[in-house]
């Protein structure tokens, strides 16, 4: 039942959006579509207006630092079919630009503000104050993978002294028995 329904949805989407690559191997009520970023507004509109996926459950950004891309994930839910669809797209990490989508769902405005602030995504046509969560933030977009929050915290804030006598167990034992851990092995030490 569910399988047929999913199959039907896939057929319909594929018929309308040629570039949509589906992933349909979940054993629960979920479907994934990966599309080009230009297709995002039209596919979301289509899902919402034509196919009954009227509830935007979540919108997300994932930083794939190694691949040089940011992934946007929109999760929509159909109260009628009881299926959630993940719509994904990838943006160039160095120049991430997306279109404003808050005419589809007004709450996307908030998500977009967060993408802009936390991931440095430029949203063309977004009308909202510049600052969302952070205030007077001067560092890079903090949710990007290359922003090291621990290093920043150490640099910016104080840490209470008194814990300098801490020792490393592995090191203590190695020192005691004269073991020399080679450098290439150290990444496997804990």
């Amino acid at each position, binding site marked *: 039942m569910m399988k047929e329904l999913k199959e039907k949805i896939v057929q319909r989407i594929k018929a309308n959006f040629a570039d949509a690559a589906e992933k349909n191997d979940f054993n*629960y*009520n*979920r479907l994934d579509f990966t599309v080009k970023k230009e297709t995002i507004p039209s596919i979301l509109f289509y899902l*919402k207006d034509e196919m009954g996926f*009227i*509830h*935007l*459950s*979540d919108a*997300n950004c*994932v*930083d794939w630092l190694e691949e040089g891309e940011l992934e946007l*994930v929109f*999760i929509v*839910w159909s*109260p009628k079919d*009881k299926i*959630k669809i*993940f719509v994904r797209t990838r943006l160039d990490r160095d120049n991430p630009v997306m279109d404003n989508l808050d005419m589809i*769902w*007004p*709450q996307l*405005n*908030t998500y977009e503000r967060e993408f802009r602030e936390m991931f440095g995504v430029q949203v063309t046509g977004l009308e909202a*104050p510049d*600052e*969302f*969560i*952070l*205030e007077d933030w001067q560092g890079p977009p*903090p*949710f990007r*993978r290359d*922003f090291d*929050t*621990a290093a920043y915290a150490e640099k910016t804030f104080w840490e209470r002294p008194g814990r300098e006598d801490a020792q490393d167990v592995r090191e203590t034992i190695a020192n005691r028995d004269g073991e020399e851990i080679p450098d290439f092995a150290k990444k496997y030490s*804990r």
Partner: protein
Amino acid sequence: MEKKFLILQKNTQDKMREKATTLYIGPQHPGITGNMMVKVQVEGDTIVRARTEVGYLHRAFEKLQERRNWLQSFTLLCRFCVPEPDPVEESYARAVELLEGREVPERAKYIRVLMLELARMGSYMLWYGGQSGSLGLYTIGQWTVGDRNYILDLFEELTGGRVYHMYIWPGGVRRDLPEGFADKVLRTMDYFEKRLKDYDDLMFENTIFQKRTQGVGVIPKEKAVEWGVVGPVLRGCGIKSDIRIDDPYEVYDKLDFIVPTHEGGDIWSRALVRRQEIRQSIRIIRQVIENMPSGEYYNRIPNPFKWTLPKGDAYARTEATRGEVAMYIVSDGSIHPRRTHFRGAAYVHGITLLEKILIGENVADISAIMNSLGVCPPEIER
């Protein structure tokens, strides 16, 4: 005479528009829910424009989770939304299980439902206090928040913590029910059933409460889903929507309970929905206690230091008192999450929705409206 009056009226209106004042509500707990600020422009005492400002509670959990391993991340979860931490823990645990394909023992599922429903009750007790307190009815809060301690006592006995339980984790729950716990739960439920009558007398039967809430903070039914309204707020608009029924998780599909709805979309209907949900929670808890199977309560995870999840992502939704909350996790196959994202109901309710429905309302009702929407700022900013 007639004409003169009209001119006078128009002049006054113009003057008022010129005098539109900006008020800053907050950041000191505008709705007894957490720190955020609502910047409103008022004419007289009518709101013409509202802007929210959040960020006072931003701890960057999602960033911190990237530095912690899959098990360590679990301890951060209960801090996402303090009044009701368990749905967050549950949705994370379920997302991890979904991604890993880990089975959860039946007993654990029942215990989880018990936790979730107790948390729902505890959260609604706090809501009673907040909702009535925001209208000046402080006695109810004294009672409900005081009585909420009996639920927290149960939590303390089961999990070892009053507020932060850290109990529902991937694979099941942390500890089995202690001896005699079921009886204690039932006794507490008996007590609450008796007390609910008192709350009704003081709150729902109270003219002040009725007059201050009926027709206030109305959400149009036809727009509700599109605007992202979820949970009791959506049910207060007359739309039957509950994740426990629509996208059932744990053992909710085996339990018998009603999803109450009320037409109207105002604070009053939302309050009525919540009032009935407490009774449904008690009903669910009684069923859970009755049907609790014996057996394992935990499907052990491997050594947490070397526990990796397969590549991919998972999304698990849970019905909390504020509405749909969900956890989105992405794994790149390592011991750390690649990214986690918490979808809180307040993220939508507290910003775009609030800004919309505050317009035309009275300044004095801001707090009550925020409370009725379940705006929980720590959930917005995480």
